[in-house]
């Protein structure tokens, strides 16, 4: 049986990398006695994946683990026993059986919602955030340098079309953004912040940002967005 498990990662766990999370879940599933299916072939590996890697130093309320188990388990029981096997700082938010969805969750991701906070910012800097966000909305294009990992070259990209929504909260102490994420088009929140800061006054942009991923979305055939936890 295939399951989509939605989980969260708090500040305690923000420094555990994607690969380390994979190993952590593998061990937790073993502790919880949830047997996984194995791939066929020369070196079989358990059928388990994390939909979209999260950068080191980010927290999240909307991460997804996809697993295929060797026996059918009530989603509620799976959620409970997995939660019990996890260390503090990882929460299981929900668990659903995937029957109609055939594609891997990772292949379905199109957008991610982020909350970006500026905990050290002064009120004068909040103002800069508000101004930058407004200018960003008005701009036709927002060109930012992006390091191309494969070729190790720097390219200019327009991040405006990769930003679906951007809104300011709490007078500028916080931003909410819905941006392209996944294998087709991708924008990192870090790059978005770079683009935004180019609209702020020199040296007035708040330095420290705390980034939390809120949710992952897929696009339906009618163009509407659907949070991954609603898939079945």
């Amino acid at each position, binding site marked *: 049986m295939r399951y989509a498990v939605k989980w969260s990662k708090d*500040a*305690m*766990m923000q*420094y*555990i*990398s994607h690969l*380390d999370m994979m*190993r*952590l879940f*593998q*061990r*937790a*599933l*073993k*502790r919880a006695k949830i047997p996984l299916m194995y791939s066929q072939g020369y070196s079989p590996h358990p059928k388990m994946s994390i939909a979209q890697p999260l950068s*080191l*130093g980010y927290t999240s309320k909307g991460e997804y683990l996809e697993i295929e188990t060797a026996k059918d388990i009530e989603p509620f029981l799976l959620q409970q026993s997995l939660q019990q*096997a996890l*260390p*503090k*700082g990882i929460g299981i938010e929900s668990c659903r059986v995937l029957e109609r969805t055939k594609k891997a969750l990772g292949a379905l991701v199109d957008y991610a919602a982020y909350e970006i906070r500026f905990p*050290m910012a002064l009120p004068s800097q909040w103002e800069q955030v508000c101004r930058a966000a407004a200018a960003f909305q008005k701009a036709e294009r927002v060109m930012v340098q992006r390091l191309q990992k494969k070729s190790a070259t720097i390219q200019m990209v327009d991040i405006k079309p990769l930003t679906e929504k951007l809104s300011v909260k709490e007078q500028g102490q916080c931003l909410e953004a819905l941006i392209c994420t996944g294998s087709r088009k991708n924008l990192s929140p870090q790059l978005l912040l770079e683009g935004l800061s180019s609209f702020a006054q020199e040296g007035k942009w708040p330095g*420290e940002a705390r980034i939390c991923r809120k949710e992952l979305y897929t696009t339906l055939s009618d163009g509407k967005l659907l949070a991954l936890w609603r898939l079945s």
Partner: protein
Amino acid sequence: MDNHQKILAAEEVLRKLEVHLRRAEKPARYTGGELYQAEKDPGQELLRFAFAFPDLYEIGMSNLGLQIIYKVLNDIPDVYCERVFAPGLDFEAIMREEEIPLFTLESKTPLYCMDMLGFTFQYEMSATNMVNMLELGRIPVLSCHRSKEDPFVIIGGPCTYNPEPLADIADLFFIGESEEALPEIMDCLRSWKKEGGSREEFLRNISRIEGVYVPSFYQVEYFPDGRIAKRVRLWEEAPLKIVKRIVEDLDRAPFPQKPLVPFIATVHDRAMVEIFRGCSRGCRFCQAGMIYRPVRERSKETIKALAEAQLEATGYEELSILSLSTGDYSQIQPLVEELMDYCKKADVSMSLPSLRLDSFSFRVMEEIQGYKKSGLTFAPEAGTQRLRNIINKDISQEEIESAALQAFSLGWNSIKLYFMVGLPGETREDLEGIAEIGKRMVELYRQVNGGKAGRLQVSLSASNFVPKPHTPFQWIAQNTQEEFTEKHHYIKDQLKSFKQVRFHYHDSKTSYLEAVFARGDRRLCAVLLEAVRLGCKFDGWGEHFRYDLWMQAFENTGVDPDFYACRNRQDEELLPWSFIDCGVEESFLTRERDKALGGEITKDCREGCQGCGVNKRFSCAAWEREGEAQNEICR
């Protein structure tokens, strides 16, 4: 300092970490919070203990001793044992810049708030990291500078069988196995805290616990030529000899069933069960083989129960059984078979370090490794039978060759062989012998593989012999660095035309300093402090090791390192560690040394007591197995 102040200090660290930790290379080294971390309320009346490992998190978390001590201490309700590791150089710079004191992973409490800080001294070259950690933790480095508010610094681990190079740093040492002694030490600390005595009073009380050594109760006097003239007691009740502690019944010794499970990859990230302590082989170069006597086994049933409990609790995908010589476990065959059965069902792989090279091992390796053939490892240690007899390494040319033949016919393509250079009595033939064994491997591989050797990889690895305290070679001079280098080149030259054979050797400079500290005395404390002042740390890591600074430190302090590394000692000389009693008698060591130089071997003591003397202090199964009559030699 009261609890409230400690909590405030921890909160201050936490606030700074929230801002600066994200700048560290691997922040997860410093966060704690792993599965099975001990949680206690610092607001309660607790004895605060920090277990300090003087190397990076990834190294320290692979250490079984840490897991055992963590369990033993945290099983005591009013003791909170937390962990601290040496910060990476990147994060140390941030800590210094932002004035973050070195803190414990569990509660982020600065080290200076602890009641006791316990270092494990596993490797001579980690001493600079200890000093650096004390500085970062804002604890005076020298014990004589510590006041009532400061923690006690206790140092244990194998290197404390010669504690003297750290004598000015430790308030106390603990020699031997600490499972049973730690609760006694905590009792002593608890009563002292209640009664509010002086540091001196605490040290006097604690020195009554067997295995504890308080260096400040003694003074060492030297001859003009630098040798030790005598040790003088400054307090008449201080013990003359410090006898190591052991756990006699391993089956009843505490052992972690729920070990801490790290988040990030460590060096050995797996379930570990220790199957026995001690070793009966008596290799003459091997300190572990002497200081961990007598052999004590954990029963097969206990081992299985512990392995299963650990695997269930951790979800680890690998199990390793540990000892000095796995194949010597009395019931190794049934043990391995039964563990293998369990592991197969539980989908866990097994690793069996240091198995013997017999047919059973090959059967096991076939089964546990399947078609994924990892490298095969042998340790002949010396290139000829003559030299192997001198060091009492019981492995013959025939055994090496037949094992290699078996391995090659079973499809192995890579083989690693470990040797030492600079052993006492070594000649040119012995160096040539190392190269010869490498060449012989190529021949044997060709025999099995129809003349071809294209896929074969032979790795010959030579370490430089470091004479260690409490071994038959403790009196012997180490080779000079020039001698080592010349020998390395000599062996390398012999192998020029053999492209399948790769020869690796250790850095002679590191081996030289290891030898200095292994057999050093109290005068090295000053050198150590000076080396740290000049910037030495992580000396065990090739890329950080600064030989030039070390030499500068020796020069600045007027201490001659050759005196410790490259000098033959006479039998009458009072050695810096002579007051440490590990159970093996000095008369046995001299006898073994003399036999060595005559090329005479000493049998494994399972085949008959060889009279090392350990049975006089501790109950020794090997000795008890035999009749009284055969044991005359021991008396």
